[in-house]
């Protein structure tokens, strides 16, 4: 069938849209006091925290810099800094 344009899309294809450019502040994961609670993983609205074993980072390709991870980190191991490009 000639593909009917604008009727369906492939699953998960939004990854093509790098939302990191929206950012005005960025979270820096300090890797200092992390207790591996992974609250940052769960509260990120974009689901883009990667890593393991107390070493986690946001995927800056997508991170919009909302700051929820930094705010919710119970041990203040994430700090927000101005985005410099």
């Amino acid at each position, binding site marked *: 069938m000639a593909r009917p344009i604008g009727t369906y899309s492939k699953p998960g294809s*939004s990854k*093509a849209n790098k939302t990191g450019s929206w950012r005005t502040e960025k979270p820096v994961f300090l890797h200092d006091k992390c207790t591996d609670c992974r609250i940052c993983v769960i509260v990120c609205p974009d689901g883009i925290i990667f890593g393991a074993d107390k070493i986690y980072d946001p995927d800056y390709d997508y991170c919009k810099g909302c700051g929820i991870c930094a705010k919710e980190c119970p041990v203040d191991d994430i700090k927000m800094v101005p985005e410099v490009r």
Partner: protein
Amino acid sequence: MRNLETSTEKAPKPKKEKEPVVEWLLAAGHRACSGCGEALGAKLVMDAAGPNTYVATATGCLEVFSTPYPESAWRMPWIHSLFENSAAVASGIEASLIAQGRDKDVNIIAQGGDGGTADIGIGCLSGMLERGHNILYVCYDNEAYMNTGVQRSGLTPFDARTSTSPSGKLSWGNKTNKKDLPAIAAAHHIPYVATATVGYPNDLMAKVKKALSIRGPKYIQVHVPCPLGWIHPSDMTIEVAKLAVLTGLIPIYEMENGVVTKVRKIGKNRRPAEEYLKVQGRFRHLFAKGADAEEELEKIRQIAEANIKRFGLV
């Protein structure tokens, strides 16, 4: 993997760099605003439901930010039809899967915002609940029509300022109370009704899982702050959501077969209503210089008080 908030076990090593700890079923790259409570809510709901889930979504922010052609953030079979019919579309999906013998071991979720659920879509929702479909309806309640620019809905709280319930010389904002939609859902004598919030993600995910383990129609209303419409900083989404609960303004509870079976107690953590109101621009007019809003604030305190009494929150 799903119970992350209190998990003490170590995360499995990601296979490669930049692979998220969880491959969320709502993929990144969606265009939700920074700090969007609805995106967070949907991410958690989808993950709790798992990939064997059919999803029908109402028109609204959730649909717009996730599916600009040719992209889609959804990793499960997903459909959007119209603003007011996600419950009916899901009903059709369920009936179709049953007739084709494809209904085993799958979940069906219908979802929408508060406007698509409580206002324009309430007819289709009622029909779905009444007919007994094995469907979970999730209402992401951000308390106004955010997609069209923050107009009031039937779930906008008392005295909130929206673009169609502005404050002014003669107005303190929205003149009506939140419609009690969970009670309306429960009045259909369905097996499971719950309220939840992105402020307590584990509770939300547990409720989704519980709902999906029950046969029949289920309704979950998830309180999701909207930084843009509520006017709070994007990093405050979780905190604002928690304050809504701790002030008693958003009671979190479960109803099984019409009876309240569980409530999230706030006990000694109870906060005064003002703490919730003051952090949001939509209530700022109540605290403006020269505003004599004591009477209004008392009305809001009374709403919290009534919730606390009704559900035994303290």
